[in-house]
């Protein structure tokens, strides 16, 4: 992989540029994000089973989102549905935060579990 020469690389055809291992690193990053959702779901599961299961169900969706438009076809294939996927992640985190906020304020605490 050659070093990038400048932002935007005007004049180059994006389809001819090889992203190298950036694709793998990004896919791994999506996987870590899905695992984070799983970890949050596991924590919430101890406090509120239904909410925990909902958050756990989001994890595989996030993992699949990372694989969208990253098929085994063209090496330079770009994430065609980029903005919508990221918006979906943001919406998921905000929804999960609101759910956790409701649980934190109104839910029955299990104090001493982390003692």
């Amino acid at each position, binding site marked *: *992989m050659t070093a*990038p020469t400048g932002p935007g690389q005007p004049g180059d055809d994006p389809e001819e540029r090889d992203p190298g291992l950036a694709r793998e690193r990004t896919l791994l990053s999506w996987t870590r994000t899905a695992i984070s959702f799983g970890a949050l779901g596991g924590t919430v599961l101890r*406090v509120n089973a239904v909410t925990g299961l909902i958050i756990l169900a989001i994890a595989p969706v996030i993992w*699949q989102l990372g694989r969208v438009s990253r098929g085994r076809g063209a090496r330079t294939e770009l994430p065609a549905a980029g903005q919508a996927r990221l918006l979906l992640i943001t919406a998921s985190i905000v929804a999960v935060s609101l759910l956790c906020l409701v649980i934190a304020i109104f839910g029955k*605490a299990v104090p001493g579990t982390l003692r």
Partner: protein
Amino acid sequence: MSWSRRLAALLPRTVAQDSGGTEPDPRFTFANERTFLAWSRTALALVVAGLAIVQLLPPFPGVSAGRHLLGVPLIALGAVLAVAAYAEWGRNQHALRRGEPMPRSVLPWILAATVTGIAIIAAVVLLISAIR
């Protein structure tokens, strides 16, 4: 049809809702996406920490609202950070497409300020509960 292809079919096929500029180097696009995902994981970690403090920690003696005082702002910060990360991703992508300098990020400042504030509150709550 695989699950990922079905999911892709449901999503609008736009790289960025920004018709100006030229498509940047894919490596920059990927790096911008990874940065967004890293902030998203940070947001999730804050939510987990906040929920664990409120729901799982034993109560602080003498400070009945101590756990909520620490946990609720962390959860709220998680939501704020997720939205701010998305906005920053859009700004960065916009700059990349136009070959402009990358905009200055406010996310580290927001995170540092809030964590410092919560650390000070935690110290005060611990001191009060130790005295009583």
